[in-house]
């Protein structure tokens, strides 16, 4: 097992009166694809949002425990939250291109962090669009609005945008749930390519997708991490009864 990129220790999350995440302990290895599976509403997305502190934006949230990224506890009060978030790229369920053209979407991240050198931006925009296999499709219309792209292209655009701030980790919240099968395939292939350079954490409720892309899988049920292991272990030889029930179809 390679060294952990993200270490979650005794994480408990409360939203209002509800105890959403219970005593999560998780080690996420570096430069691998890790899928979090489990039925809807069991806390997978909350767990994901804890990792880049996007959860802070919600009302009435209490977080106990530690989330260590490269050894640093991101919930330490001294830590600067925008710095943390920059380390992680986020892909949402539906693509949310910013209200600007394709070029500006990718350049946005760089620009807000102070890079306005046109030559550099041109090169970076091209690089990231190539990284997501979108360059050939859009190179002639970089200045047209991003909303004109197909939904699959928009999702790839959002991925490129997320990569533009050089994160180390990519977080995906059911990133293909709004896409057609072909676009889904594109995104999944991208994840397999990108894992050489990034640690990828995905939330998915499609078992087959988890099977296709993951190196490691964590099964989350009712706010608890029931089991965590390699993809092969979880999908083929699960140890816990609950995991067995879910993976082999008894739970939904």
């Amino acid at each position, binding site marked *: 097992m390679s060294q952990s990129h993200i270490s979650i220790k005794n994480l408990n999350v409360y939203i209002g009166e509800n105890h959403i995440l219970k005593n999560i302990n998780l080690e996420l290895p570096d430069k691998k694809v890790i899928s979090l599976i489990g039925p809807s509403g069991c806390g997978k997305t909350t767990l994901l949002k804890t990792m880049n502190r996007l959860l802070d934006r919600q009302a009435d949230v209490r977080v106990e425990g530690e989330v260590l990224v490269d050894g640093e506890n991101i919930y330490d009060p001294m830590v*600067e939250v925008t710095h943390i978030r920059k380390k992680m790229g986020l892909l949402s369920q539906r693509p949310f291109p910013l209200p600007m053209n394709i070029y500006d979407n990718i350049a946005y991240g760089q620009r*807000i*962090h*102070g890079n306005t050198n046109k030559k550099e931006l041109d090169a970076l925009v091209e690089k990231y669009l190539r990284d997501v296999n979108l360059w050939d499709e859009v190179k002639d219309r970089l200045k047209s609005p991003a909303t004109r792209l197909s939904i699959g292209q928009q999702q790839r655009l959002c991925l490129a945008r997320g990569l533009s701030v050089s994160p180390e980790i990519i977080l995906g919240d059911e990133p293909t749930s709004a896409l057609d099968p072909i676009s889904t395939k594109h995104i999944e292939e991208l994840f397999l390519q990108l894992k050489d350079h990034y640690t990828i954490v995905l939330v998915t409720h499609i078992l087959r997708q988890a099977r296709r892309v993951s190196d490691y899988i964590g099964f989350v049920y009712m706010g608890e991490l029931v089991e965590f292991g390699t993809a092969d272990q979880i999908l083929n030889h699960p140890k816990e009864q609950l995991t067995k029930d879910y993976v082999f179809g008894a739970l939904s």
Partner: protein
Amino acid sequence: MKKYRLLKDKLLSKAFLTLTLLSILIVVMVGVGLYYKSIPILEKNTLSKLLFSSEWKPFNEQFGFYPYIIGTLWITGIALLIALPLSLLTAIFLSEYAPLRIRKLVIPLIELLSGIPPIIFGVWGVLVVIPLIQDHIAPHFVEFTTGYSVLAGGIVLSIMIFPLLISILMEIFDNVPQELRDASLSLGATKWQTVKKVLLRKSSSGIIAAVVLAVSRAFGETIAVLMVCGNFAQVPHSVFDSCYPLPALIANNYGEMMSIPLYDSALMFTALLLFVIIVLFNTVSRIILFRIEKSTT
């Protein structure tokens, strides 16, 4: 560079918060300002004397607001009498019965109606409503009227509150979950029975809130009413009598305000009266509407 961004964000946050807090204080400031200006008249007259007496003798420092208050109530009452049934029926029609095409046609027209400035309603009132009352309606009922009357004010006002009532009513009806209607229909009830027994009952508090808002709108309408009500301070005995609602009192006399002692204080007191009533009505109504919205999301 990074420090600057974060600092900017923090500063803007503080600045915006300050602006927001100050704006909220406007309500308080208006109330306090008007009260402050009303103090002189309150010192010379008790509140009950102001509200219930009809003696209006500025030079004697006597200000009885009773006729004005009654005038306001009369025209608001007439306006509501006309507008409520019509708005209710229209809102039910648009919300429950009308096909999409008709909704798309009618709703923008109603919005257009709401955008028309009060002065234009006033002009229309003078051109159409007054002659209508004087020549066609009143002769059946009374000996003589100039047409400038409670009824005229009520009619003009009712048209002005249609859009408000309709839009709030439709919002309330939208808040009633479709499942409730379905449940009623699947028990064999007709659409109308569903509307009567389910929709209206469920929306009753919302309807009250809508009416309260419409009333407070009617209380405060100045120009349109002023042009058609006759501006004669008396307690009206019929809808064909002239009246003199509170806002008209303020608007008509601002010129004399400064020359007669205590007059300005009296007018500010009028404004204060309106302010207190309207703020009260609005607060209650909005809280009710907010609760309704919250309970269905």
